[in-house]
């Protein structure tokens, strides 16, 4: 059921060291890429059909091709601010195989013509950042990072930059501001980072898993890689599965296998006697799906067609022992805490959603409040600089639609118990 490309040697002892990584064929793809022209590398990336693994699923090759050509300062930023609840695949990659990421960054920077690169890693991943730092200094000493890499004429500086705890810095423009030493507020787009990003220069921003896949693509060839997966979702994907399953963890799968195979086959499903109530297919920002959706193929388009998204590939399973109001409150409180406060719909909308959900839970809500939450969610979506507000509105909105009766029953039950209910009775 699993298909190991990125995870091929993941538990190999000592894989974090350059020696073992090289022994397992590491940095061969880099040699191969440097023997090609940057344009040829780009052709391979586009041929692979690789779509961004961080959440948005944008074609990676296309993103590289958006960068202006010519001799100007260009930057490559690796987004390692993995903070989407339920996601822990990048942590695994960086912790166990840091050189895969470094090799991917060097190849991508060669294709993009970028000479300065940064890994923006969330502050909480301090151990993983230490591992990256050690691997990086080994790579520098071996002449793999720095001036004139392996005699190719391509030069690259690479710096591991540690964040300090802010979900919003995973948003690409918030990340850029944070990397420039500011509060991590998202920017207005356009201009897009490909044109004006870090220090106002053209910037390529990619997720850890996306960049770590690049050596595999160059190694096997873009066309060969594109044979894996489905028509529009090529290749393999790391899936982080957590919540009410018996074997939570990271699994590498070929895109397009049924979700049931991941949730039940790999992760063992909920414990004995319990059923899947709902599941988030791509982190807590994705609209929830139900048990009926378990036979859908797990890929970008099938998830989108079902009204949700593949997102970061983080499946969170909730079983029937959990009231939906508890899940909604957890999710809403998280986004309220992480809203940067710049845009009104998000700042106020996340706050009011929490307040209204608390009312329902406390017993002083009226049935109209459910309606208000739904309309509030609608009014957040598409009305802010970034999608943090949407990331709350989409799952909460989906819960209201799919579990309407449960919300109403909960509201009535708590109301009957509260003073307000006693007065009305």
């Amino acid at each position: 059921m699993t298909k190991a490309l990125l995870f091929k040697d993941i538990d190999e002892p000592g894989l974090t060291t350059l020696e073992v990584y090289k022994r397992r064929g590491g940095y061969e793809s880099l040699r191969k890429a440097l023997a090609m022209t940057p344009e040829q590398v780009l052709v391979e990336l586009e041929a692979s059909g690789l779509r961004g693994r961080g959440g948005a699923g944008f074609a990676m090759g296309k993103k590289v091709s958006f960068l202006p050509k010519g001799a100007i300062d260009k930057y490559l930023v690796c987004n390692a601010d993995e903070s989407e609840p339920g996601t822990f695949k990048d942590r695994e990659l960086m912790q166990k195989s840091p050189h895969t990421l470094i090799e991917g960054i060097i190849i991508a920077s060669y294709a993009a013509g970028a000479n300065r690169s940064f890994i923006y890693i969330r502050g909480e991943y301090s151990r993983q950042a230490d591992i990256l730092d050690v691997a990086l200094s080994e790579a520098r000493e071996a002449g793999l990072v720095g001036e004139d890499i392996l005699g190719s004429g391509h030069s690259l500086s690479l710096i591991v930059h540690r964040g300090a705890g802010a979900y919003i810095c995973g948003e690409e423009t918030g990340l850029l501001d944070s990397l420039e030493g500011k509060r991590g507020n998202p920017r207005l787009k356009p201009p897009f980072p490909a044109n004006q990003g870090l220090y106002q220069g053209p910037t390529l921003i990619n997720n850890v898993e996306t960049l770590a896949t690049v050596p595999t693509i160059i190694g096997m060839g873009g066309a060969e890689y594109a044979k894996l997966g489905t028509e529009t979702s090529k290749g393999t994907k790391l899936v982080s599965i957590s919540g009410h399953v018996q074997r939570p963890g990271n699994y590498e799968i070929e895109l397009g296998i049924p979700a049931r195979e991941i949730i039940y086959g790999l992760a063992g499903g909920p414990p004995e006697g319990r059923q899947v109530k709902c599941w988030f297919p791509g982190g807590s920002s994705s609209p929830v799906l139900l048990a009926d959706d378990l036979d859908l193929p797990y890929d970008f388009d099938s998830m989108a067609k079902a009204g949700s998204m593949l997102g970061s590939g983080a499946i969170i399973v909730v079983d029937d022992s959990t009231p939906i109001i508890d899940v909604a409150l957890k999710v809403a409180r998280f986004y309220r805490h992480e809203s940067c406060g710049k845009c009104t719909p998000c700042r106020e909308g996340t706050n009011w959603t929490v307040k209204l959900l608390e009312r329902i839970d406390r017993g002083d809500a009226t049935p109209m409040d459910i309606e208000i939450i739904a309309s509030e969610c609608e009014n957040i979506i598409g009305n802010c600089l970034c999608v943090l507000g949407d990331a709350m509105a989409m799952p909460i909105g989906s819960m209201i639609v799919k579990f309407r009766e449960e919300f109403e029953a909960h509201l009535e039950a708590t109301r009957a118990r509260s003073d307000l209910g006693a007065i009305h009775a």
Partner: protein
Amino acid sequence: MSDRVHQQIHARAREESLLNARVCVRTPKTNAIPPEVPPELREEIERHMALYPDTRSAALPALAAAQRLHGWCSPEAIEQVATVMGLTPAYLAAVASFYDMLETESIGRHDVYVCTNISCSLRGADRLYEAVRDAAGDDPDFNVRPFECLGACDIAPMASVDGVYVGPLTPDDVPRLLDDIRTGRPVLADKQLATRLVADPNANSQAFPAHPIEESAP
């Protein structure tokens, strides 16, 4: 657009951004009596500043370094960073207040972040957090905080102790957890994330009880 036009646009944009950046740069007048900066802190901040095309990018690593030295981003710590970086303390205080890991109030010596986000809560994190909080009490050794998703849902419910991830935890683990921190032993050595395999599907499995998410006081 031709290369030349592109270059001109970027040169202008960069100039403008540097101009904006000067707004928060300290003028000599406001810095009549520069505070003493411990040499090792100055050296570390300057090392970070040298890494970036724009020195301001070193703000987060510099504040983190000052916090390691002072225990938190105290006014004194911020003043010292400001002196080395040539930024105003107000600017740096604004930056520090944005980030969860930069402390703007005095805190305990050891960070114990208990993840209470969705995946951990589904497996009993709220009860775990309460157990840690109650056991730690007001011991100045500990900075116990409920934290947003720490990216280790495979070992849920979990905690990060000064950056070391441990899990899956139950309230029964709490006394040993705190004791390990107090005595300086490796924290819950048998439950550290670093020792777990990836490919073994049973690496993270454990029986877990049926319970809804429980509310915990903030």
